[in-house]
C-alpha cells in the first residue's frame, strides 16, 4: 500500500505571541515543529505500512527550512520525502495550497491512501485535507480516530463524532484526516535518525509540478487574512444564585438595565 502523508511545519504553539502593535505573529525566536496532528497522521501511516506493507511518502509545501520536518518524518518511519517549495507559492490560502499539493501528488505518482492531520495548529482551518481530496476527485473522511483493518482496497475505520463514533468502510484510494486519539506517535529511532540524515529529499518547484501560475500563491488564493488580533479580554463575570426563577428574574433585570 502506498501512502502519502501531508505534513506542515508550524510555529510551536507554546511560544507563539502576537505583536500587540502590528497584530501579526511574532515568529522571532519561535521554534518550528511538525504540526502535532500530522505526527499522528504519520504514525497511522507507518503502522499501516508495518501491518500491511508498502511505502510512506511525506509531502510538505513550505519554505526550504520545512525540510527539517520532512527529515523528522523520515526518522519516525517515512520512506521518502518531498518538499514542494517555490517563492511563487508564498501567500497561498487553503485553496491555492490544495491545488499545489494536488499537482505535487500527481507528479509523485500513484497512491492508495493520503493521510493528513485534522488541521494545522497555526491556521486551524481544517480545510486542506478535504480540499485536497476534492482536487484529486477522491473520497475523504475527516476525524478518523481508529483504523481497524485494511483488505482488498477496503479500509475499515472509526470517525469521531460529538456523541460517539461512526464505523465506516472506505474504498481506496481515499483521503483521511486524523484526530489525536488515533495513536501515540513514536519518537524517532536511531536507525531512522541515521537514515534521515543521509536521505536526499526530493524538491519540487512550481515548474516541476507544472503548476498554472494563476492558481498558486497569492494569485491563486481566493481568501486573504485581512487582520489578526487578540480578542479583547472578556469583562467581569457575575454568577447568579438562587432558584431558577430567581435567577431568571435577576437576568431580565440586568438585561433591561443594559438597554
Amino acid at each position, binding site marked *: 500500500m502506498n501512502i502519502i502523508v501531508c505534513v506542515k511545519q508550524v510555529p510551536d504553539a507554546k511560544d507563539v505571541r502576537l505583536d500587540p502593535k502590528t497584530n501579526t505573529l511574532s515568529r522571532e525566536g519561535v521554534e518550528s515543529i511538525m504540526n502535532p496532528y500530522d505526527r499522528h497522521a504519520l504514525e497511522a501511516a507507518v503502522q499501516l505500512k508495518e501491518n500491511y506493507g508498502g511505502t510512506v511518502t511525506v509531502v510538505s509545501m513550505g519554505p526550504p527550512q520545512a525540510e527539517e520536518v520532512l527529515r523528522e518524518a523520515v526518522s519516525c518511519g517515512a520512506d521518502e520525502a518531498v518538499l514542494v517549495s517555490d517563492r511563487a507559492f508564498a501567500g497561498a490560502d487553503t485553496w491555492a495550497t490544495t491545488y499545489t499539493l494536488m499537482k505535487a501528488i500527481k507528479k509523485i505518482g500513484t497512491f492508495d491512501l493520503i493521510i493528513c492531520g485534522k488541521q494545522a495548529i497555526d491556521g486551524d482551518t481544517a480545510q486542506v485535507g478535504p480540499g485536497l481530496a476534492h482536487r484529486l476527485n477522491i473520497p475523504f473522511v475527516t476525524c478518523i480516530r481508529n483504523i481497524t483493518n485494511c483488505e482488498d482496497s477496503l479500509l475499515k475505520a472509526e470517525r469521531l463524532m460529538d456523541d460517539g463514533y461512526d464505523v465506516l468502510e472506505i474504498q481506496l484510494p481515499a483521503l483521511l484526516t486524523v484526530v489525536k486519539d488515533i495513536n501515540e506517535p513514536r*519518537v524517532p529511532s*536511531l536507525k531512522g535518525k541515521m537514515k534521515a540524515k543521509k536521505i536526499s529529499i526530493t524538491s519540487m518547484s512550481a515548474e516541476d509540478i507544472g503548476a498554472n501560475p494563476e492558481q498558486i500563491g497569492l494569485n491563486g488564493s481566493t481568501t486573504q487574512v485581512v487582520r489578526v488580533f487578540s480578542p479583547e479580554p472578556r469583562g467581569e463575570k457575575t454568577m447568579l444564585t438562587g432558584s431558577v426563577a430567581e435567577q431568571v428574574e435577576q437576568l431580565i433585570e440586568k438585561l433591561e438595565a443594559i438597554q
Partner: protein
Amino acid sequence: MDYFLTEEQQMIVEVAQQITDEKIIPQRAELDEKEEFATEILKDIAKADLFGLYIPEEYGGYGGGCFEVVLALEQFGRGCVAVATSFAASALGAYPILLSGSKEMKQKYLPDVASGSMKAAFALTEANAGSDASGIQTTAVLDGDEWVLNGTKQWITNAGEAQIYSIVAITDKSKGARGASMFVVEDTDPGFSYGPKEKKMGIRASATRELIFKDCRIPKDRLIGRQGMGFITVMKTLDLSRPGIAILGVGLGQAALDESVTYAKQRVQFGKPIISFQAIQHMLADMAIQVEASRALVYAAAKHIAAHQKDMSKASSMCKVFATDMAMKVTTDAVQVLAGYGYMREYPVEKMMRDAKILQIYEGTNQIQRNVVGQELNKEYT
C-alpha cells in the same frame, strides 16, 4: 560541558532524551505509586532501536560499546531510575551470552534481545550469597543431555518480565570458585517459577522477584561458555555493566540538580528567590560540581573499558562508587533545597532520593567496589 561526542553518539543522546522527556517523565510518578512495570515505555525504547546499542551488527544490533550504552542510560536515569534499571538489567542478562556464549547461542538469543522483543535478566544473588558469591547454593547437575537445576535466586531484576535468564549455578562444589557455571534459562522451561513481587523502598516500577528452580531441566547446550567458567563470566559482565549503574547516578543527580535550581529560582522567602541566598547557592554549586565530576569520570571509564577489555575492573569500580555516592548526596540535598515541598510525594525529588539508595547497593555494594579498587592498587604497586 562539551564532551565532543561524535555525530552518531549525539543522535543516541537525542533519541534517548526524547523518550525520557515525552514518555518516561510524564509517567514516572504514577508507575512508582502503582509499582507498575513500564511495559509500554520499554516498547518505545525498543522501537527506537536502543536495546541493540551494545550488540554487534551481525546479531542485529548497533555495534556500539559501553560508552554508547552509558549515553542512553544517562538520559533514562534522568527520567526514572526504575525504568532505566529495567532497560539496563536486560543488557546485564545478555552480556554473559555476548562475552562467553557460543556463536550458536548468540545467534539464537541476541537478535531478539537487540530488537527488544526479548528481555533478559541476570541472576547471581541468593539468600546466602550477596557480596560473597561463594555462598551460592543453586546447583546444576548433568543428566544425560540435560542440566537439572535446583535452588532459588533472590532479588532478581526483570524477574517475571524477561524471557531469558543468565543464571549462576554450582556444577562442582569441590572446585570452589571454579566450580560455578552460567546457564541460560528460558521463562517457559519446566520446573522454573517466580516468587512474589518484592516491595521496595525505591525503583518501585522495576520488577524484583525470586527465581525458583525445582528440578528445572534445560538442554545441555544452554551452558554459557565452558563448565567452571561461571565466575569469570560474572566478573567480566559486572565490570562491563557497572559504568551503566554509575551513569544512572549521573542522570539522577542531574535531574535532582535541575529540580533544585528551578525551584530555588521560584521560591520566594524573605522577599527574595531563595537562590539569591548564599547558603542555597553553595549547595547548588556543590551539586553541580559533583554531577559534572562524576559524569567526566564515568565517560572516561566507559571509554577505557571499551578500549581495554582485559583491564576493566578498577575503572569500572571507581566510577560506580564515585557517581552513586554522589547521587545519594545530591538527591538528599535536593530534598533539602525543596525542604517541606521536597519531602512531599507531589514533587519528584523524594522519589529521586529513594531511588538513589539502590545505586550504592546493587551490582556490587560500594564497599565491595572499594575492595576491588584496593586490590587493584595492591597489584599495581608490587
